[in-house]
């Protein structure tokens, strides 16, 4: 590794200095944000920047769950898991999500300047692979929707595909290419938001769990934490995979469930590929990180374990994930697996995020973004912050309401 790269890396490490297990927890605040992932940190930043009195509490340490255990991919193309029915029936929702994705990309691309710190944004472009004729047709339909929403993608086949991606195996029949996709470093982006939130006056307190949330007559909440009681005019549940538990404290039932996702990480190798690789029909996301390691995931499950234990990675997912990756990029066969890891993610049964204020419990807000959650969270935090600080801010889609029941389990 070159000396300048080393120095650059070192500069990021004090980012977590924003977190304090011994910060004084104020007796009252305007907004109490629960959860120290990228959602809570980005929202606290936007609120504090707007002059709002904000306290963020986190049960463990900042950025430890999904926000710090995803691969940092900036996914913009419509992925298969966003599809409930067909591209035709889902078109209105997919158009809206893709327009939001374009705005999310713009925000990520400008974030290093705005936050005046590193997020390691690399715009590499991304490929979504299809093996079969049916999958290739899906790509074409998907590309049309993306074009309509303002996201630039191209369908590649034959020589054009091989020229763009000579490392793809013979099973790849077509792909869409999205030049704007890329990746960030998920270990630094969330903590950087938290640091800037603190710079703007937010109180950030780690090691502080929330035990009960009681709505008060006349508005506001009494929140019992492990470090004492906080009275808050407004509460934001940014507890990610555990958002349902925090919502149940005020009687709300969120249409979500929790799932662990498996990731394989290899030894570093000479640069083989630049872009993100996804598949329209198979469980695969793949990229080669800045240090040369391949990071391979794509929706393979891991076993749930209670907090504070981490989700356990298992052999079936390790081996299955490897098989799909080698099928798509055969040169990976002789690359050695070094590690596996697993993060935990929430999912909603209707694929939509949960963002906004509850009408049933006024003052209680939820910011829980799951599908392509890392990509979409900062832009949705910004939308929610606008709602909370600016009269006449654009309304959030009704489909995101925390009061919806969603489809049955």
């Amino acid at each position: 590794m070159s000396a300048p790269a080393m120095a650059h890396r070192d500069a990021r490490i004090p980012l977590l200095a924003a977190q304090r297990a011994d910060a004084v927890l104020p007796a009252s605040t305007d907004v109490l944000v629960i959860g120290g992932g990228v959602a809570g940190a980005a929202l606290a930043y936007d609120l504090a920047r707007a002059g709002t009195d904000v306290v963020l509490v986190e049960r463990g340490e900042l950025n430890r769950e999904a926000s710090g255990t995803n691969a940092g991919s900036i996914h913009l193309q419509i992925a298969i898991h966003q599809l409930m029915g067909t591209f035709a029936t889902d078109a209105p929702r997919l158009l809206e999500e893709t327009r939001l994705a374009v705005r999310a990309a713009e925000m990520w691309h400008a974030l290093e300047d705005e936050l005046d710190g590193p997020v390691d944004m690399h715009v590499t472009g991304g490929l979504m692979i299809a093996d079969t004729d049916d999958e290739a047709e899906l790509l074409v339909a998907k590309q049309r929707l993306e074009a309509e929403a303002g996201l630039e993608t191209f369908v590649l086949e034959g020589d054009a595909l091989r020229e763009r991606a000579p490392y793809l195996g013979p099973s790849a029949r077509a792909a869409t290419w999205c030049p704007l996709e890329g990746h960030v470093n998920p270990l630094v982006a969330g903590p950087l938001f938290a640091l800037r939130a603190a710079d703007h006056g937010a109180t950030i307190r780690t090691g502080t769990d929330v035990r009960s949330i009681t709505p008060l007559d006349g508005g506001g909440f009494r929140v019992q934490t492990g470090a004492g009681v906080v009275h808050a005019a407004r509460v934001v549940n940014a507890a990610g995979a555990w958002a349902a538990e925090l919502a149940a404290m005020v009687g709300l039932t969120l249409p979500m469930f929790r799932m662990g996702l498996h990731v394989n990480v290899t030894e570093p190798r000479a640069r083989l590929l630049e872009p993100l690789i996804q598949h329209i029909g198979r469980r695969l996301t793949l990229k080669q990180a800045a240090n040369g390691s391949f990071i391979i995931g794509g929706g393979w499950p891991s076993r749930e374990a209670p907090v504070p234990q981490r989700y356990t990675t298992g052999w079936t997912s390790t081996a299955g994930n490897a098989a799909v990756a080698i099928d798509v990029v055969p040169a990976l066969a002789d690359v050695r697996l070094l590690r596996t890891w697993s993060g935990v993610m929430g999912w909603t049964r209707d694929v939509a995020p949960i963002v906004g204020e509850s009408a049933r419990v006024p003052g209680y807000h939820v910011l829980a973004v799951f599908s392509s959650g890392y990509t979409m969270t900062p832009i949705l935090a910004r939308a929610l912050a606008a709602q909370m600080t600016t009269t006449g801010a654009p309304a959030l889609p009704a489909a995101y309401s925390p009061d919806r029941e969603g489809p049955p389990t």
Partner: protein
Amino acid sequence: LAEPETYDLLVAGGGPAGLAAAAPTAPPGLSVGLVDERITLGGQIYKQMGPGFIVRDPAALGPDYLRGRALIEAAQASGAALLTGTSVLAVSGEEVVLVRDGEPARTVTARRLLLAAGAHDRPVAFPGWTLPGVLTAGGAQTLVKTQRVLPGAAILFAGSGPLALAFPAQLHGYGANVQLVLEAGPPPRPADVARMAAAAPGNVGLLRDAVRYRAQLLRGRVPLRYRRIVVRAEGDGRVESVTHAAVDADWRVVPGTEETAAVDTLCLGYGFVPSVELPRLAGCAFAYDEHRGGPVVRVDEWMRTTVPTVFAAGDGTGVEGSYVAVDEGRLAAIGVAVDLGALDAASAREAAAPVRARLARKRAFARALRRMHAIGPGIYELAGDPQTVVCRCEEVRRATLDDAIASSRDANVVKGLTRAGMGLCQGRNCQRQIAALIAAAHGGSVADVAAATPRLPARPVALGQIARVPDEDMGRFQ
């Protein structure tokens, strides 16, 4: 579909503990598999010569070699399946994933698993420890034992414990130019020797070994200096000089006592630490005992861990040497036999009685040795310079770690922020040193710092060797 590969007892590790467990003390009727990642059995201590060597006079190779041969031959005669060149990648319940060099990985069923993966050299970080020419006692021993190659032309040995005498004596015996031996601990006092002798009835062999090694060094005029520790290795591209200094009782360097020796090889032997990857993956509970190597698997009187189907024996349950390991392996085999109904409780007690008696004596001896050679906390303070590389795989320096540790005492967070422990060695070389830095910065002891989450695989393995689409295809969306 091929017959599923099932073992009543699968033993991971072909050193003294594993060999003893696989040998015929267990009653017939149990199917036993013995796995070792090397192509020959024997583990580290009884490491056999590499392919192409023929031993014409076994006695000339010394008593350790003969003890090892006897154990290996007993295992070979036992009918156990000897799975050499094979690594354990994962353990989950009774499922164990094995991979043989160059072959596809396979999942086997182990009704009982005995973890006997032994120990490895205690890694010690100090300025220059990553220079070519610095190697561990285990590494040097492998060169000598398997290939008959001496590690360098002018050797400085720095270490502590029984090995600090035994290993340089061995090297010297092979004709190596050992220029200086440094022992971090004190010279043996008459009281220690008396205590050891009192603990030693039945351990005459062990005492004799120690005396023999000492005499061998004296005869060879190899200077042996007590209470000195290595502080720095320097050179242009490889070791050219080694600086050492006097230490106090806690192994902390006494200022102004540095001396430099011109050597091309620095061999380190600060004892051993248990190999914990497999028991951690299996979910076994640990205790912490710095003087038995640090994290040690908790076992009951039959060597059963806190995971009911998993047993552990040998240095992995606390580094106490090969004699203890052999008897722990025997005990575990008896325990497994009872567990699987192949032996009744009374016969087991009877078979175990002499083993337990021997173990008690040998453990007493090991305890006496440990009192003489207690590890000083100063061992963790040699990486004092901010530029010292602590994680050699990812080249993470002390200063970088200090920044991360200032913001978190969670080993997982520190790992994520710095990449320390994410490289090819999977953290074996730096995890303890980082835990010590966390303990020093936040208070508490190394023992209190929770290790980073254990993750598959236990050994690096090519993706092509493990790729397998599951029976119900999770690889394709419906």
